């Protein structure tokens, strides 16, 4: 017969065992032929699901499981995954993040894996593939798409203002008076009494519709959808060299004058303030245009499908138009040129299979599928052409404002550096302060010293 004491002993043993197995249970990467793949953009998931189905058909025994998490959760989940050994086999990587992951030794060089060893730079839009090589010269990502910046506008607001949409294609700006761009922004701004921003009696404290929407201060991503098109068109570069710059240029007048003008639009009532867009939980320009608080706004090509799906409160589709970023003091327009890629993690238990999937994602078949879904511009030129055609036929949208920048070589690359997380952590609050107006633009000189110091410590 089991005694009381024995029973307790068994119970304790069982409890301990349960606690231990609970700690040891893992999900994520496994070696059973299912490849875990992560991405953050829900709009892209259907397209990549099609790729996954095609891949499974071509590779019997292999299956792709796609998980999608929103941008913020994505990166914290990925970090947690690296720590807890639950990271996916393959994930969509961003230029602002990959250098850190290379340093943390969680990415596998694609050159060392059979299927991805022969990826050619020349197969992709010029410059894209090279961005994904680490300081050791090895490739850590296979290009999947690219993006540029343009102006999205509410065609109804332009019409109501009596502006010819053709005018939007040739806008110019400068940091002194803002040029024809600022004139248009002022004209599109309407206060609560219906007075336009360029008319006498305009009440800048009670604005109903701002001429230009705001995507925040841009401190977290070098002003990509905020001010990078303006600083870029002055010829300004964020770092001494790109990629792998170690000295920063936030102390230069070209940047400070531009930001002084850009954030000055808030003071004039032409652009919504930090509070109006919701502070730390800001809404994007798409929602601002939808709700009528902005008439136009800068955003990226990955947002085309979101913008073209916008409806008014009655459920009617909004007529959205596109215009290129304005021509700046350098005599040219400018757009940041950024791209995403797929990376294989060192935690993958089936790196060769994972590499097969990455090869497929970066290959012609999948990129054509993505091009035909019209959500982003695939990295291969043929895929890009399909996306352009899709927008023309299905959305009646001319996406030239995005593509022309690449043709004209007026793009500049996203600043790729190491210590990206520290840079973002230092920059975001300082730029927020400039946007809010609690710090002058000249405070960025001190920030620049802090950023430079980051690299003195690191070396």
């Amino acid at each position, binding site marked *: 017969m089991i005694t009381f*004491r024995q029973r*307790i*002993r068994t119970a*304790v043993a069982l*409890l*301990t065992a349960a*606690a231990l197995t609970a700690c040891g249970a893992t999900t994520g990467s496994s070696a059973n032929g299912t490849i875990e793949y992560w991405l953050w953009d829900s709009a892209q998931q259907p397209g990549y699901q099609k790729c996954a189905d095609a891949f499974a058909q071509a590779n019997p025994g292999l299956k792709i499981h796609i998980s999608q998490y929103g941008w913020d959760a994505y990166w*914290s989940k990925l*970090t*947690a995954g*690296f*720590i807890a050994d639950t990271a996916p086999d393959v994930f969509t990587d961003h230029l602002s993040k990959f250098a*850190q992951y290379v340093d*943390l*030794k*969680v990415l596998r060089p694609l050159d060392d894996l059979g299927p991805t060893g022969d990826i050619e730079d020349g197969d992709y839009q010029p410059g894209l593939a090279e961005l994904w090589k680490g300081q050791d010269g090895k490739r850590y990502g296979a290009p999947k798409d690219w993006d540029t910046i343009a102006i999205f506008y509410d065609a109804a607001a332009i019409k109501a203002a009596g502006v010819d949409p053709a005018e939007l294609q040739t806008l110019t700006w400068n940091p002194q008076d803002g040029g024809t761009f600022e004139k248009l922004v002022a004209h599109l701004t309407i206060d609560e009494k219906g007075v336009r921003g360029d008319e006498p009696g305009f009440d800048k404290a009670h604005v109903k519709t701002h001429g230009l929407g705001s995507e925040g201060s841009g401190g977290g991503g070098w002003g990509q959808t905020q001010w990078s098109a303006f600083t870029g068109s002055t010829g300004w570069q964020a770092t001494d060299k790109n990629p792998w710059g170690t000295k920063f240029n936030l102390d230069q007048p070209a940047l400070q004058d531009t930001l002084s003008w850009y954030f000055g639009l808030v003071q004039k009532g032409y652009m919504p303030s*930090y*509070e*109006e867009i*919701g*502070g*730390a*939980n800001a809404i994007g320009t798409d929602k601002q245009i939808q*709700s009528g*608080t902005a008439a136009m706004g800068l955003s990226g090509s990955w947002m085309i499908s979101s913008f073209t799906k916008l409806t008014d409160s009655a459920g009617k589709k909004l007529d959205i138009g596109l215009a290129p970023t304005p021509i700046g003091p350098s005599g040219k327009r400018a757009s940041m040129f950024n791209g995403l890629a797929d990376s294989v993690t060192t935690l993958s238990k089936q790196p060769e299979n994972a590499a097969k999937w990455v090869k497929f994602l970066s290959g012609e078949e999948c990129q054509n599928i993505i091009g035909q879904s019209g959500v982003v511009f695939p990295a291969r030129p043929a895929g890009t052409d399909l996306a352009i055609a899709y927008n023309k036929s299905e959305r009646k949208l001319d996406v030239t404002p995005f593509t022309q920048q690449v043709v004209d070589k007026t793009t500049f690359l996203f600043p790729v550096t190491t210590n990206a*997380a*520290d840079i973002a*952590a230092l920059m975001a*609050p*300082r730029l*927020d*302060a400039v946007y*809010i107006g*609690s*710090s002058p633009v000249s405070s960025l000189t001190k920030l620049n010293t802090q950023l430079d110091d980051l690299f003195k410590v690191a070396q």
Partner: protein
Amino acid sequence: MVTTTSIRPAKTGRARNGPRDDTRLALLFILPALVGFAVFLVWPTLRGIYLSFTKFNLLTPPEFNGLDNYVRMVQDPVFWNALKVTLYYVILNIGFQTVLALVIAVMMQRLTQRTWLRGIVLTPFLVSNVVAAMVFLWILDYQLGIGNTIIAAIGLDRIPFLSDSAWAIPTIAFINVWRHVGYTALLIFAGLQTIPETVYEAGRIDGAGEVRMFRSITVPLLRPILSLVLIITVVGSFQVFDTVAIATRGGPVDSSRVLQYYIYDVAFGRFQFGYASAMSVALLAVLVIVTFLQYRLTRAESSDLA
């Protein structure tokens, strides 16, 4: 309770050898809790202290770097600002919460006997912190929130509750007062129940009013409970995190970057677990000092009722 003397006649043969020894059985019962305590509290704390002397990114092995993290901490203006912001939050949060909870508890005891009314006070505590923060984020939104819509409707200017540096911390403090006040009131209410009704009767015979009795009877006799409640709530308040993470993410600029959020950001956003551990050790030290002072100043270990 551990040792009980057997008064049964010497039949089992054990009582002859003196009192029955229950230590082994007692240890067995304590063991599960002790394992939990050691695995989830003692070990992480010790390891955290060790990590605070290293450079550690969690993925590659920690490198010992002596006092570097502590030197950096002393020189880090964001750390000192975080400490200041946290302290400001604690003062606002605990100040309002304790006074309000005391008032609610006294009203519960003196004015109503209805259980459902007492129950209602506790309902906000049943809502999770994250949900409470989300709901208030929507209510207080500058453009679309119903709170600001009402403010605008009565002709006042909209208030940027969570997106202005002067408003952020008071707003977060208020959200957490709303959530925790019922729970705190319940703890104080339990304390009030221990004060004998006879003392109040004596007070009434002497002609004291409700206010006088509150000051001269309730507050002094409640002191041990009140100080216990304060110790618990202050420690909890210093560790504010979820409301900030949801509502402001430390912004605008650094105005709501409380210590816990800064630690989290440095650790999981910037992979500097060594430095984050050093700041956690600093927070631990602050909490130990604050708790010790509170314990001493309020003489929490002695009661005037005896």
